[in-house]
């Protein structure tokens, strides 16, 4: 599973990091770091929780097989 990060939409609510600080890393201002996130096996639940918690809809879950093969 992968999380597509639309950095431009992030407004620093930090809700994702509140759910899973090790998956969603923030910069010094409290905004998400750029770049999509590869989710390690076993971390799907906190990762999808975190993605679903973003008020700006900046985080999108990508469960397509291609994302897994990559």
């Amino acid at each position, binding site marked *: 599973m992968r999380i597509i990060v639309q950095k431009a*939409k992030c*407004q*620093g*609510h*930090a*809700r994702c*990091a*509140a759910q899973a600080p090790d998956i969603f890393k*923030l910069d*010094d*201002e*409290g*905004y998400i770091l750029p770049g999509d996130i590869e989710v390690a096996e076993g971390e799907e639940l906190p990762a999808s*929780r975190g993605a*679903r*918690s*973003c*008020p*700006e*809809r900046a985080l999108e879950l990508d469960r397509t097989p291609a994302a897994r093969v990559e």
Partner: protein
Amino acid sequence: MATNPVPDHVPPEMVRDFSLFTSPGMPPTPNGDPHAAVACVHDGPPIFYSRYNTQDGRGTWVITRAADQRKVLQDAETFSSHRSIFSSILGENWPTIPLELDPPAHGVFRSLLNPLLSPKRVLALEPAVRERAVELIERIAASGTSCDAMKDFAFPFAVSTFLRFLGLPDDRLDTFVGWGKDLLHGDDKERPVAARTIVAFIDELAAMRRQEAVDDFMTFIVQAQVEGRRLTDTQVRGIGVLVFVAGLDTVAAAIGFDLAYLARNLKDQQLLRSEPDRIPLATEELLRAYPPIQLIRVATKDIDFEGAPIRRGDYVSCATMIANRDPAEFECPNTIDLEREDNRHAAFGYGPHRCLGSHLARREIVVGLEEWLARIPAFRIKPGTAPITSGGHVFGIENLILDWS
């Protein structure tokens, strides 16, 4: 009151008799529930026009759906924040910063201020916040079995937390609370007086810090450089005034509404007391149910927005308390479910102006509830008393007499 003419471009069928200032439940009301009162707009059209919906009596479009509010607030180019709400009280025209700046200027100041209130910084501030909460609550617990939770806890807790952040001593706390009350809830005479007092206070503080630096927020601001230059006096004032006002009323109101809810819902109160791990999640639900703020934007161009013919210069209202009761966004929005998951509420706004103090505010509420529930046994609203609530630009609760005898 609702006699403002409807602008020609607004179709008469889009005008609704609704106002955050004058509708039922909005003026000061004993035992009121202004948040539930505004939820009734969801029985009607998703967007409508209100003839009287700002402090100074202007008409606004009212955006009721959370998804539409997100669109408006994320599109600062079309929906500007430049409106000088504070300085217009004084008949002047300068922006509070960053609240009333638009991108790209907005982003420059946000980047300057973000690190001061980032999640990391707030973690470092937490011990002092907790210490203050414990101190206030222990004093309350020691002095009897009843108190006014607003006067004795919510206001002094919220205000002294941000005074400490600003680098100001606690000894004038009551004075500051008074200024805030007059500014946000006062009449046409009290508001300009309060605004002028706050400006003079901030100007004086900035002058002092320019002369002699100390390790505090105001010193940081007067020394800060943006694009290679020191801030102008007006910019320093714009930031100082905003941060002063933003922390005065909001956190106190949130804590007040939360404690009032718990006082009336003993089962939920007991659940959080016996399982304090649930408090952070519950706090999100209480922020969803009882957010204090209405956001206003000004259209910068003509736009047909979801069927509404919005014209340049029109005011557009995004009330967080309305978005947070949107049935399209939240299942059973009028049910308060302290275990609600996936709670992407609008209490701190959406888009670039997302509340700068949100991380601090959240921690204050969580810490406040944790320490309160750990020290005060089952409490309820003291029989014979009634909390007075009000709507408006910032929803409020004046008094909250709790009893645990």
